[in-house]
């Protein structure tokens, strides 16, 4: 592979004119020629569904793939709290500029200004689009849309549909896509997992997929490939991500030449239900909108940590977020809230059986507004908490603890959302672009839909209009090679199963997750990261020396094979994350390096050395990955040390 240079292709001119300029200067595909182009979209969450719908409506032939039995199951469905948009409906001084500013600041100055500005700019159209698609957002008695404030901001710009905003936005995008399925514009392939990218003459031209039901492998071709396959939080095993969420599609694209941007930037969400035991298979998040009315506290004294909360007097409670950050209080950004929770638990003041939890208390809010108002606002979340923990949050404060929730890192993309492999576009959580080192609440839904509805239909056209797409099919050498390598990989893993081994794949997976959480989680140090890399390497050795794998008799059909293939990729990605975290010897956003903190224990950024995107190039073996840097230029928002005091 020739040496690749990073070019973000940011349009020139003032930040507020860049997107208009791009749109007026981009190349267009003649409407009659659009149907001659086929585009593959992998993933049907917010980004994938909206991209499939918009590309199909634009006139391209779209082939859409999802791993689930139905495209509506994608994990965007689980987002609860809301979606930001700079509508300024509340007349509280919001604007595109302010949303842009908050996002760049919230991301701790590790995102690209031009992308973030565009995101803020198209945010208002997302709300109009979603309402037109029938999304039942919350409304006021006037019939107008309701807004609420959300972690990390001082204006109310978050639109919501009870605690099911992700579900409603996804169903809106899914239904818009299904209309195209009906008209024949989108061809849907369900229960297909992408296992490789087919690159022809340096361009992404197809994919290899495995049918998760039959194990059958097939190849599919197009003029461009869009990956909208979500994040890689499942590398921690326990996370709020769904079971099918995995990194294989992006990791395989990475191995085929797409650089991986900022892999160490992960978001730990502060309001999750704490782990209850070793059997735990996943963590459940509760929307951080709860922090609008709930107050976070732990006992002032260690000795009180095991006492029932109602027996701890007001004077003996430490509302630590309100105490340390008086102007933002309980609404500090996620990374700050999470780290502070960890800190008080490390001090021995954590509550619950495990001591790994803090209280989120609605007593005062219920007294102020009445139980019925709280029930209307958060009823489903309270119900969910009650079901899981068997405790009634109307009577007792909730116990919460941080959990891995979102990955800001992802495949590196330029302004047009194209990766370093021409023709491979990456959307939504799968790319690295808009959230820097920390994502603000209610911004993931915004980004997924911005990319799919309002960015890709334009930038795809600009790419396709350049032409030069020779016909490709399964007889092409690149296709044969990709298919053969997938087959080889599957038989290699099946061999591991035959070798036996002491552990099941799940046991190795859990060990990987624990290593990542302990050393590449909320707080990272040089010593810990090196240990993590070592542990991951020995886990990999263990994996390759044999695992317990059971098939249905027919080798191709096995869910444990599926998991084994994903774990193989997660082991590699985990190591790259640790390498990236080690290289970034500063604290920023969700990445807290113990060696880089202020006297008060807050994250200390180092703009001189680290004001860049780290983009890793795969070189045959993870440990040999090469780091490329995209320098970040701030022309509009002057980087300052974040302060939420």
């Amino acid at each position: 592979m020739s040496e690749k240079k990073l070019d973000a292709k940011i349009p020139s001119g003032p930040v507020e004119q860049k997107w208009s300029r791009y749109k007026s200067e981009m190349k267009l595909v003649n409407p009659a020629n659009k149907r001659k182009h086929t585009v593959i979209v992998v993933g049907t969450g917010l980004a994938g569904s909206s991209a499939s719908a918009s590309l199909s409506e634009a006139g391209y032939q779209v082939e859409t793939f999802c791993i689930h039995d139905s495209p509506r199951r994608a994990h965007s469905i689980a987002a609860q709290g809301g979606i930001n948009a700079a509508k300024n409906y509340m007349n509280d001084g919001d604007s595109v500029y302010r949303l842009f500013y908050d996002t760049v600041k919230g991301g701790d100055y590790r995102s690209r200004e031009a992308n973030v500005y565009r995101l803020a700019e198209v945010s208002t159209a997302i709300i109009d689009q979603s309402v037109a698609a029938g999304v039942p957002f919350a409304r006021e008695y006037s019939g107008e849309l309701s807004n609420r404030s959300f972690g990390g901001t001082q204006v109310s710009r978050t639109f919501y549909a009870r605690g099911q905003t992700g579900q409603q936005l996804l169903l809106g995008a899914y239904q818009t896509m299904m209309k195209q399925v009906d008209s024949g514009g989108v061809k849907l392939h369900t229960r297909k997992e992408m296992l490789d990218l087919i690159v022809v003459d340096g361009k992404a031209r197809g994919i290899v997929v495995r049918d998760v039901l039959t194990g059958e492998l097939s190849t599919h071709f197009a003029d461009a490939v869009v990956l909208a396959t979500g994040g890689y939080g499942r590398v921690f095993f326990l996370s709020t991500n769904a079971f099918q969420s995995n990194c294989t599609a992006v990791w395989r694209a990475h191995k085929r030449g797409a650089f991986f941007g900022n892999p160490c930037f992960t978001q730990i969400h502060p309001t999750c239900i704490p782990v209850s035991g070793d059997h735990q298979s996943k963590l459940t998040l509760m929307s951080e909108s709860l922090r609008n009315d709930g107050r976070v506290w732990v006992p002032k004294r260690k000795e009180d940590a095991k006492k029932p909360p109602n027996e701890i007097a007001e004077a003996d409670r430490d509302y630590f977020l309100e105490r340390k950050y008086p102007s933002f209080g309980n609404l500090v950004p996620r990374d700050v809230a999470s780290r502070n929770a960890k800190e008080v638990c490390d001090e021995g003041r954590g509550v619950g059986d495990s001591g790994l939890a803090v209280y989120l208390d609605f007593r005062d809010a219920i007294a102020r507004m009445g139980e019925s108002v709280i029930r209307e606002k958060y009823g489903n979340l309270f119900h969910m908490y009650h079901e899981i923990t068997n405790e009634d949050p109307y009577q007792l404060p909730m116990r919460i603890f941080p959990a891995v929730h979102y990955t800001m890192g992802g495949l590196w993309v330029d302004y047009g959302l194209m990766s370093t492999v021409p023709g491979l576009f990456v959307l939504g959580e799968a790319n690295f672009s808009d959230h820097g080192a920390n994502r603000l609440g209610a911004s993931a839904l915004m980004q997924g839909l911005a990319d799919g509805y309002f960015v890709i239909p334009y930038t795809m056209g600009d790419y396709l209009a350049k032409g030069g797409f020779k016909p490709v099919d399964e007889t092409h050498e690149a296709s044969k090679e990709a298919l053969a390598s997938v087959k080889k990989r599957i038989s290699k893993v099946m061999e591991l199963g035959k070798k036996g081994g002491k552990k099941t794949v799940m046991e190795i997976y859990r060990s990987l997750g624990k290593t990542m959480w302990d050393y590449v989680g909320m707080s990272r140090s040089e010593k810990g990261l090196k240990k993590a890399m070592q542990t991951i390497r020995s886990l990999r050795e263990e994996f390759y020396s044999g695992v317990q794998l059971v098939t249905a008799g027919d080798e191709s059909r096995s869910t444990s094979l599926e998991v084994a293939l994903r774990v193989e990729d997660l082991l590699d990605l985990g190591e790259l994350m640790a390498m990236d975290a080690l290289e970034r010897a500063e604290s920023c956003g969700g990445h807290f390096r113990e060696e880089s903190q202020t006297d008060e224990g807050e994250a200390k950024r180092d703009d001189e050395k680290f004001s860049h995107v780290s983009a890793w190039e795969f070189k045959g073996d993870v440990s040999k990955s090469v780091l490329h840097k995209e320098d970040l230029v701030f022309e509009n928002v002057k980087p300052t040390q974040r302060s939420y005091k």
Partner: protein
Amino acid sequence: MQVNLKVWRQLDRNSEGKFETYTLDGASENMSFLEMLDLLNEDLTKRGQRPVEFESDCREGICGTCSCVVNGQAHGPVRGATTCQVYMRSFKSGETITIEPWRAGAFPVIRDLMVDRSALDRIISSGGYTGAKVGPHPDANSMLVSKPDAELAMDYAACIGCGACVAACPNGSASLFTGAKISHLAKLPQGLPLQNLRSKRMVEQMDKEGFGHCTNIGECQSACPKEIKIDVIAEMRRLYVKAALTSEA
């Protein structure tokens, strides 16, 4: 706790299925029902036996993937909950728990506890949308919706497409699912332009897929994890008749 599990095992669509019984030690009350099945599968894997294939994804009751009939009830004994939201505290130690897939003509069993629910997607693609194109639209606040209407639309839109309504219905009808989508869009002005076409096509697609007819039994609303009421079926019928009587559709 120790539980006896009577589980439906079936290799694929064309094979005969049968119940197998397993005794599982080591489950605990705070385990979710699916975590208990995870434990069973780890156990089976270690003994070299084929794990029980079941579907799940979000494990927080919103994606609609999980789908077990537990002791004869779709999604098990907890009201307003999906299978993944059922905890072992709902069962007694020593109890025998029967676990089956959704049973309905339009949902063929494809392996163990997995069924093919793609018919539901085809019902949506036959009209479960407003028809608005992607692109610029009038400002969202230019079309007002009364709060009660917006709340009802949300109640209906809460459907997660799991198919429990079909599994619970003695007729295997998908009327609650279809009615929920038709009623959601009927409550919003954005849904009106395609309303007649939608009501007609979605109902006809439901018939085509081999779902049974609704005879007002009401099992569907008891099984629905999102507690959608059968009012939506009445609304669906009203709109279907209206559509059938107007020539445009």
